[in-house]
């Protein structure tokens, strides 16, 4: 163990070297090495998980692919770094990953003290609780005295403490570092309650040994705006990551899909022409450091936001999560993108 600690210390020192090299221009670095290094969850169904062939797939993975498509026009030019909740931040700080697309909650602490930048929220989530139906619990307020399984290094862990304290409830936290350890402990009956973001609860429920024996309680106890994070100090890279998300939203707004994007290039709508980079003398991409047709490449690569959502976590997936808050602003949700102008 002493050796592990020593390695960690040297790692902590050496991590600076990486950050040093990467801080000049992340876009330049990514282009030079020829692929995007993307930090993802080590395995959360629907968001980021390797399939049977070992190919990564999921909502967050599609964001990695979309960024790679914007830069290289090729969704395969991504290398994935699976990270636990705990080691995701050092991975980004050290420059081991170029972007962290790992259902990470945007908080003021992470935005400032930890040295990251967040802007677009690609999934509006909230923390919930899952229990066994056999316990006959109908509300989170009945959970006093329960053992609660939770993953360490998450906002979940902190919200949990606050919620039980505010409501004067007792609980016994059972804390693990890795998601699969939390899942296994809950499945084995080590705890009565499983808590994480609601999207995560639905994803986890599917992989339990008897999904139908468990239910998600109605309470949502926190705001969890999830989105991609980058290091502070590289505005160009921050802009690229942000605008890839806005492109996905705008594409859905315009009705541009993976299937019809080539056709849409012929559209007479000046907004769409500008967005897809077919306007004469446009600098819509070069100002970002990309090609002018970057949005076309993104949409060709992964489709629009709605398609990404439905394919991975929505109706087209086993998770069947409703769009809810994540519907477009024009359809009752709060997903909204600035104009491309």
């Amino acid at each position, binding site marked *: 163990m*002493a050796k592990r600690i020593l390695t960690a210390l*040297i790692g902590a020192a050496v991590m*600076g070297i990486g950050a040093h090299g990467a801080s000049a221009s992340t876009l330049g670095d990514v282009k030079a090495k020829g692929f995007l290094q993307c930090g993802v969850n080590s395995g959360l169904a629907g968001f980021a998980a390797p399939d049977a062939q070992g190919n990564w797939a999921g909502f967050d993975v599609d964001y990695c692919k979309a960024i790679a498509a914007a830069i290289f026009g090729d969704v395969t030019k991504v290398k994935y770094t699976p990270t636990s909740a705990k080691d995701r931040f050092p991975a980004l700080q050290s420059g081991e990953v170029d972007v962290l697309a790992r259902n990470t909650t945007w908080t003021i602490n992470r935005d400032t003290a930890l040295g990251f930048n967040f802007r677009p929220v690609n999934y509006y989530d909230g923390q919930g609780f899952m229990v066994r139906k056999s316990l006959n619990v109908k509300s989170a307020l009945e959970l006093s005295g329960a053992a609660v399984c939770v993953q360490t290094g998450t906002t979940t862990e902190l919200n949990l*403490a606050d919620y039980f304290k505010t409501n004067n409830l007792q609980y016994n936290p059972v804390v693990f570092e890795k998601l699969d350890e939390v899942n296994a402990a809950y499945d084995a*009956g080590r705890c009565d309650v499983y808590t994480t973001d609601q999207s995560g609860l639905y994803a986890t429920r599917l992989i339990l040994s008897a999904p139908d024996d468990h239910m998600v309680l109605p309470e949502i106890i926190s705001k969890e705006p999830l989105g991609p994070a980058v290091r502070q100090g590289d505005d160009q890279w921050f802009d690229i990551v942000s605008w890839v998300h806005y492109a996905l939203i705008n594409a859905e707004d315009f009705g541009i899909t993976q299937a019809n994007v080539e056709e849409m290039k012929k559209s007479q709508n000046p907004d769409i022409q500008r967005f897809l980079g077919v306007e004469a003398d446009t600098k819509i991409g070069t100002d970002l450091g990309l090609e002018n047709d970057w949005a076309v490449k993104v949409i060709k690569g992964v489709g629009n936001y709605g398609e990404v959502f439905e394919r991975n976590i929505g109706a087209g997936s086993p998770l069947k999560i409703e769009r809810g808050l994540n519907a477009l602003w024009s359809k009752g949700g709060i997903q909204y993108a600035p104009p491309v102008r």
Partner: protein
Amino acid sequence: MTVDVTIPPGKNRQTSSFLNDPKVRGYLYQAITILVLAIAVIWITQNTIENLKRANIASGYGFLSGRAGFDVGQSLIAYTSDSTYGRALVVGFFNTLLVAVTGIFTATIIGFIVGIGRLSKNWLIAKLSMVYVEVFRNIPPLLVIFFWYSGVLAVLPLPRDSLALPLDMYVNNRGLAFPRPVFDNGAQFTFYAFVLAVIASIAFVRYANKKQMETGKRPPVLWVVLGMVIGLPLLTFLVTGMPISFDVPIAGKFNLTGGSVVGPEFLSLFLALSFYTAAFIAEIVRAGIRGVSHGQSEAAHALGIRPGLTTRLVVVPQAMRIIIPPLTSQYLNLTKNSSLAIAVGYADLVAVGGTILNQTGQSVEVVSIWLVVYLTLSLSTSLFMNWFNAKMALVER
């Protein structure tokens, strides 16, 4: 040059290569090593500071007084989510200490039994001990922890179907629940009586030793000591009107409520570390006993000393001199291996520190605290064992 003076005139040409002087060369190599080391340390430090600044990460230990905000499953001292990060680290430290001390205690006992067992003339005992050592010595400690956690403790029944043990104790997959003593007014006298009995016992043992030296007869030490240590507190307890009651665990809505609970996280770690380290201690004990010249026990037999007494009074004291130094290493290993706690979610120093590191981003500071604490723990253990070793060493007259 002073060197020239010492060299005979005939070998004047060699003065240029004073590097050939082994003494000079020795100093030179040491100087170069120190220089390289110093440069490396300075470079790493400066690089770290510079890069922390670049990443806008504050440094220093100020964060320790911030509110932790998270709860810890098991704590020996009062702790809530309102406590500070510093206190959370202390909680983790005590948890590490708890598992290390109890682990060392149990590992030593199991190790001595198995080690002596391997030397037994009884075929079954010797072979069983051998199998034990070979099994546990050849499995990584992490797997032993998982074996206890997932293989043994996780398959215990759910809280609603807890296994009842004698004395109102219960076992389920949430751990071991046992009655917690509640001390009412007057309970302190029972405690005082116990302390008094222990002091009296020590005095009596000394008296018994002295008496044995003088007359060759030994008073019945065991019975007197047992009588005092158990009888005196019991008597006080009854006289003061039984001021100690027990909070017995009973079935609650989710778990057993009341009593004290030792979670499966602690149990699996404690059992794994004890069993794993005991295998090594057994081999050390066996080596120590084998290291005592056979003539010693033969001489004891020749004097008519019984085999049990021979082991206790002749062989083991001499073996201890061989055993203690490697035993120290095993104690240090056990303490350091306790950081594997993170695999089963036991809130030890590393687990709690990791959470803090993650929340505050103060990786360098937290890692430095880990280093200092483990170093201090290890050095203290070494110091104590060195003292013990010196005490046990052959006293030459």
